[in-house]
């Protein structure tokens, strides 16, 4: 089935979360910090989006969760990339690359035109 726009957005978020976890287990706050740092604070994934996404990825088996100790000294849930998640990440990245490759020649000239206007 062809992917719809909402699928693509979700796929992008999944890819971002999976990438954050590809360096090791993180808790929710850790993931959002990682994404913010990596994007020079441009990307702020809201809690209302992040946590549901984590629960979804856990349900479909892309990530696993277990309790661990947070820096506060309280326990927190740490998420870890599963083998299925690694595969999904590869697919999402490729799909995203294809999308960018397809859309860029159309949209990027608009950008320069918008700048000149």
């Amino acid at each position: 089935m062809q992917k719809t726009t909402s699928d693509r957005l979700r796929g992008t978020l999944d890819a971002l979360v999976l990438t954050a976890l590809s360096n090791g287990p993180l808790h929710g706050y850790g993931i959002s910090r990682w994404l913010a740092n990596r994007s020079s604070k441009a990307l702020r994934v809201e809690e209302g989006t992040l946590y549901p996404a984590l629960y979804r990825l856990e349900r479909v088996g892309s990530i696993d969760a277990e309790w661990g100790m947070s820096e506060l000294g309280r326990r927190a849930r740490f998420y870890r990339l599963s083998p299925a998640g690694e595969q999904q990440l590869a697919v999402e990245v490729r799909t995203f690359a294809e999308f960018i490759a397809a859309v860029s020649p159309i949209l990027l000239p608009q950008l320069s035109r918008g700048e000149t206007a």
Partner: protein
Amino acid sequence: MTSSEGRLRRLLRSRILGPSIDGQIDEELDVHTELVVRELMAEGFDEPAARREALLRLGDRRQVAEACHRQARGYERTLRRGVLWDELRQDLVYAVRQLRRARSFTLLAMLTLAVGLGATTALFSVVHGIVLRSFPFAHPERTVLLLEQFRDEGSEFSVGNYVDLCARDRNFEAIAAMNFLALNLAEGTEPERVVAATVNGDFFKVFGISPQLGRTFDGSETEPGHEAVAVLSYALWRSQFGGDRAVIGRVVHLSSQGYRIIGVMPPSFDPTGSHEKLWVPFVFTPAQRAQHDEHYLDVVGLLKKDSSLEATKAEMGVGMRELTRRFPNANTGRSAVRLQTISAWVLGDLPHRLYILLGAVGLVLLIACANVASLLLARGTTRQSEFALRAAIGAGSRRLVRQLLTESAVLGLAAGALGALIAEALLKIFVRLAPPDIPRLDEVGVDGAVLGFALVISLGASVLFGLVPALRSGRQGPHSLLRGGMSSVGRHYDLLRSGLVACEVALALTLLVGAGLLIRSSIHLQNLPLGFDAAGAEVSRIGLPESAYPQPRAVVAAFEQIVAGLQQQPGVRFAAAGSGTPLGRGATNNGLLPEGLPFAPENLIDSMLHVVTPSYFQTLRIPLVAGRTFTTADRSGGERVMVVSRTLARRAFGDRNPIGKRLACCEEDPAARMHTVIGVVGDVRTRGPAAEFAPEFYVPITQTPAEGWTWLQRTLTLVVRSDSRAMATAALRKAVHDVDPTLPVAVTSFGEGLDARLAEQRFHTALLLGLGVLGFLLATVGIYTVVAYFVHQRTREIGIRLTLGASRMRIVQHLTTQGAVPLIGGLLIGAAAALGTSHWLEGQLYGVTAKDPLTFVAVIAVLGLTGWLAILVPALRAMRIDPRRAIADI
């Protein structure tokens, strides 16, 4: 997801899946918030501000938690359902808006449907209340009535046969015999005549109903040597005993005998629909137990769980034949046992008649649906541009069909709600007008099952009338908008409309043929000679208690005295007493043997006995055909005489003169058996206005057969012809109370009794006629709207044709021909359908066959003519079209 559902789910999860996912999410979000607070404080916020900011960023915590929940459980499904629901809601809003915009269409369609749905729902509630609802017994499916099979008919059991056959049968959990008896209840100021059931065996156990008060009697109390006890019906307890609970244990006098009241049954207890007012034990005497003749017991039983109706019937048939071998004289012609559930017996052929009415009302509903469908089709064409526009902006054709069906469903449900109100009103009228002897009529009402039915048929009807137009518009793509103009009416549309017209005509024809046949039957019955004159006569049944009148001589003397007294009363012109008067109860039959023939079952003529005073024939105006009627000289001890009906005379003696011939009957004693025929009288429809003539014979009251007063329960009907009803009533009271002031006297009009007998047939005919007319009107309106719409659509085309020189006559001819094709087709289909279904009415037709040509021709003519007028009127309007204006509209 609603929050209550969420709560439930959370609860389920915490109970079933161990640690709550909720706590987990909460904990996670807490940690997250703390970490954000720390981060913010590091950026320079003070703690309260950091906390405020962190909570602000988190947003609605509950919403986040719920979103996590949904994700953990499968978000996609919920999402899809949500989309569907959203679309449905959109469709509903849109449908209501559309229907409100087309106000006259909506009103017309809704009224048409509501009438059809209302009538159908009302009739269904009648069927449900009377037929479908189970009878109020513990085990209605095993509660049966037993009859002896006598030739082609069912007959009551004799005590001997009951004791030897039924009471011993092992297939029954409980079995009882009953007989009805009118007793004089001396309670209050005036003695009252109440119908009682005398029962033997485990009568109350058969039905499994507990008393409301006190107790019922069991098998042992119907054995000899017990105190006489009585169980009251609720109605009698209220009316005669004021609903006094202290009535239990009291002794009441019934026909001069004391009975101790031991219980009161609940109001709904009327197991055989006979409306008896109390129950007393029937203690068989040894003589009765030995008596295999005299068949008067109704036997009821509760079959054991593992006994089948058919097997029990077969088994008992063997026993019955054995009894017939042992007692050939008493059991002549009795070869089997009939067994049917009490519900089937009480309802008789009523379910059949009700289902016919339900079918008829269903036809009306179908016609209404066809009308609405054609209205929708017409609307569909005017809405084409709307659909095309919606299709063009991206609505899929499936979506369009769904939306149109939603519109139909909204229309159907609104009409259904209105129909339910109409049904409620119709039902009230039905119950008020219906003849009172329809069983369980007072329990009919609109309840949950009926409303469920209304909902289902409303939705069904919506699909029926909405689907075809919806599919049509679904098929039209945006291209139809571009095409528009001239040929917007496709061939399909015409075919579809023609089909609808044909259907309506066919349905209406089927309905009208049924109504026509019943009307002809009604006319036939109305004109049928009854053989006696009921008009202007008043009747009263008088029963003499055995305790006060033990000797037959005393009974005869009392009745003779009463009749003599009656004839002296002012205003009384004729007065008589007799048993087995027409329309009355208490008739008994005897097998008559013409002199000279050997005693064999095939020679016996089963005839109805009438014990009468000499003035009987004059009072009822039964014509004398030959010989003479009785005089006061025909006394007991003299020559035994009888008067026979024409049918009996023909049956017994053929063409020979019956006067002076002799017939044996009614007595065990051979010396007393022979009766000389002294006269022949006209036939009388004793068993009702629709019954065939049957052999009947009359004997003078003074020569009543030895057992006669037992058979008749010492009861005769007094008949009085006088100047006014009031006078007759006064005369009857006076004459009876002069002889015995303890006897209750209730006077009824003979003519009204006759009307009541015809009432049910008439009511049924009126209902079917009403439905026929309704269907007929709907169909006519339907044809008219279709043709009128057709003409309206063709206005431009007709204008062009007129401009091009076509004559106006030619246009009308063209239009009527086009309309006539479906009309004739419908008539043909309808005639075939009516021929195929009219035999369902056969049991209710009198003097007319189910394929009566006159009815068929008349209905086809009426429907054809009206249909043609419905076509002609709009066609003539087309003639007046102004060609210039018609074309200018293009």
